[in-house]
C-alpha cells in the first residue's frame, strides 16, 4: 500500500467533496472512511484511477451518512445539488482546501492542526505526537477547527498570506517523534506552489529549502547548537541549496518582492558562501533593509544590527543595536556577541549569562551558558 500516494490524494478528494457542497466535517469523515476502504481493498484489487476511486467511495459514504441524517430536507437538497460526475480539476479543489484550513477565523494552532490533518493527511495521533500533546486534546482542537470553518463558503479568494504563515509555523516546529514537520511543511508548500502561481509561495518554498539544507550541520551529535560560522559546510545539502536558489531567482525575476523572498535571499547569501569569512555581509545588510521596509518586525531590525556588525565592524553593530528596544527577544545575546567581537570580554561574558536566562529554548540556553563559561574560564587563566 502506497501510503504517500494516499496522503497526497487526500486533500484533492476532500476538496471535491467540499466543493460539491458537503459540510467540511462530514466530508472529512467520509474521506477517512474511503481511505480505510482503500487500505483494505487495493492490495488485492488495485484501482485504475486511484483518485477517481477515492472520490466515488468517499462521496457514496457521505451520501449514506447524509441520508441517515435526521435533516431530511437538507439531505434532499444536497442530493439534488450533486453535479454530474466527470473529470474534476484537482488544482482548484486542493487550493481551496489550503485557504479553508488557514481561515482567519481560526487560531494559529487550530489552523496548523487542521492543515496537517486535512491537507497533509496526517492522523490525529501523528499530529498530537509531533506537538507533544495528548491525542484527545488534539482531536478536540481539530474538531473545533472543523466546526469553525464548516459554514465557510468558497465564493471568495482566500488570503495567501495566512496560508503561508500557517505553513511557516509548521516548518518552524521542527521535528519530534516520527513526523518531521519541517519536511511535511516543505511537501505541502511544494504542493501549493504547484497549484498556485505566486512569487511569495515560491519565496517561502525557497526559504524552507535553504534552511532545511543546512539542518544536518546545525546541531552537533549531542544536540548542542553549532553556530553558522562553525558549521561543517560539507554537510550542507548542496542539491537542496541549488534548488532553493533556482526557485528564488525565478521568483525575484517577477519583480513582486515580499518578505519570504527577501528572507530567502538572505538565506541564499549564507548558503552561497564557501566559508563563513567569505559571506557577503554588505549584500545581507541591504536585504535586511529591504525586509525592514516590507515588514514592521523588530526582530528583522535586530538581525540587521548583527549583520551591520559583520559588514561595518562591531562598533557599528552596537550602535544599530542601541537604537532598538532592549527587551526584544535575543537582544542581549546579540549585544554579547558584538561586545565579544569588539574585544570587551568581561561585558560579553556577563551579557551571555544574562541572555542564557532569557533564552526561549533549552539548546539556545545551553549554548549561551557555554559562551559565557568560555569567556569566564579564558579570563581566569
Amino acid at each position: 500500500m502506497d501510503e504517500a500516494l494516499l496522503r497526497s490524494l487526500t486533500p484533492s478528494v476532500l476538496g471535491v467533496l467540499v466543493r460539491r457542497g458537503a459540510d467540511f466535517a462530514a466530508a472529512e469523515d467520509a474521506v477517512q472512511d474511503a481511505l480505510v476502504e482503500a487500505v483494505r481493498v487495493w492490495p488485492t484489487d488495485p484501482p485504475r484511477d486511484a483518485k477517481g476511486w477515492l472520490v466515488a467511495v468517499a462521496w457514496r459514504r457521505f451520501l449514506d451518512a447524509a441520508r441517515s441524517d435526521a435533516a431530511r430536507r437538507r439531505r434532499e437538497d444536497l442530493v439534488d445539488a450533486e453535479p454530474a460526475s466527470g473529470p474534476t480539476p484537482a488544482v482548484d479543489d486542493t487550493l481551496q482546501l489550503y485557504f479553508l484550513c488557514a481561515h482567519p477565523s481560526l487560531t494559529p494552532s487550530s489552523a496548523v492542526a487542521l492543515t496537517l490533518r486535512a491537507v497533509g493527511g496526517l492522523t490525529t495521533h501523528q499530529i498530537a505526537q509531533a506537538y507533544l500533546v495528548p491525542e484527545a486534546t488534539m482531536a478536540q482542537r481539530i474538531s473545533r477547527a472543523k466546526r469553525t470553518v464548516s459554514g465557510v463558503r468558497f465564493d471568495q479568494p482566500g488570503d495567501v498570506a495566512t496560508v503561508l504563515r500557517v505553513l511557516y509555523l509548521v516548518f518552524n516546529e521542527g521535528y519530534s517523534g516520527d513526523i518531521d514537520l519541517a519536511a511535511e511543511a516543505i511537501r505541502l508548500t511544494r504542493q501549493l506552489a504547484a497549484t498556485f502561481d505566486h512569487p511569495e509561495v515560491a519565496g517561502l518554498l525557497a526559504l524552507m529549502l535553504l534552511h532545511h539544507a543546512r539542518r544536518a550541520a546545525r546541531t552537533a551529535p549531542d544536540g548542542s547548537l553549532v553556530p553558522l560560522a562553525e558549521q561543517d559546510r560539507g554537510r550542507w545539502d548542496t542539491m537542496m541549496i541549488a534548488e532553493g536558489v533556482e526557485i528564488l531567482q525565478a521568483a525575484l525575476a517577477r519583480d513582486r518582492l515580499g518578505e519570504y523572498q527577501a528572507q530567502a535571499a538572505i538565506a541564499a547569501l549564507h548558503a552561497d558562501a564557501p566559508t563563513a569569512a567569505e559571506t557577503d555581509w554588505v549584500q545581507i545588510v541591504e536585504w535586511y533593509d529591504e525586509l525592514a521596509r516590507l515588514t514592521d518586525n523588530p526582530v528583522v531590525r535586530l538581525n540587521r544590527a548583527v549583520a551591520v556588525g559583520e559588514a561595518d565592524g562591531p562598533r557599528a553593530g552596537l550602535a544599530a543595536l542601541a537604537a532598538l528596544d532592549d527587551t526584544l527577544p535575543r537582544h542581549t545575546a546579540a549585544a554579547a556577541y558584538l561586545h565579544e567581537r569588539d574585544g570587551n570580554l568581561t561585558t560579553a561574558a556577563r551579557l551571555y549569562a544574562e541572555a542564557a536566562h532569557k533564552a526561549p529554548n533549552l539548546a539556545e540556553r545551553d549554548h549561551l551558558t557555554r559562551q559565557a563559561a568560555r569567556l569566564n574560564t579564558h579570563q581566569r587563566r
Partner: protein
Amino acid sequence: MAKYLLLKHYRGAPAAVNDVPMDRWTPEEISAHVQYMNDFAARLEGTGEFVDGQALSPEGTFVRYDGEGRPPVTDGPFAETKDLIAGWMVIDVDSYERAIELAGELSAAPGAGGKPIHEWLEVRPFLAAPPTTTECLFHG
C-alpha cells in the same frame, strides 16, 4: 503554540484574597472548588489546550548524593519557608497572553463562602526544542 506550567502552591506564594484554609471550608465549598478545577480542565481539553494536570501531596523530602550508599534524607533545609507545590496544570496555548488569561481564570476557583479564592498562581513557560529556522547568526 507554546506550553506553560501553571503552578499552584500550598505556601510560598503571596496570600490569596479569600485566604481561608481549606479545612475550614464546608464540604459543599470543597466540592464546588474541585468541580471548578475539573470543569476547567475539561474545558481546556475541549479547546485543545490541555496537556496535563496533577495534584501533589503536601509532604515532600529533600535528597542529595552524599557518597556511596548513604543518600541523606531530610524534610527540607528550609522547613519554615519551603515552597510546597500543591499541583500543576500544563497547557499548550497560542500566546503568553492566553496563558495569563487562563491562569487568571483558574485562580478564581471558588473557596470559602463560595467566593473566588483569588490565589496566586505561578506561570512558567516550558523550554522547548529550538525552531528549525533559528540560525545561530550572532553566535557566530
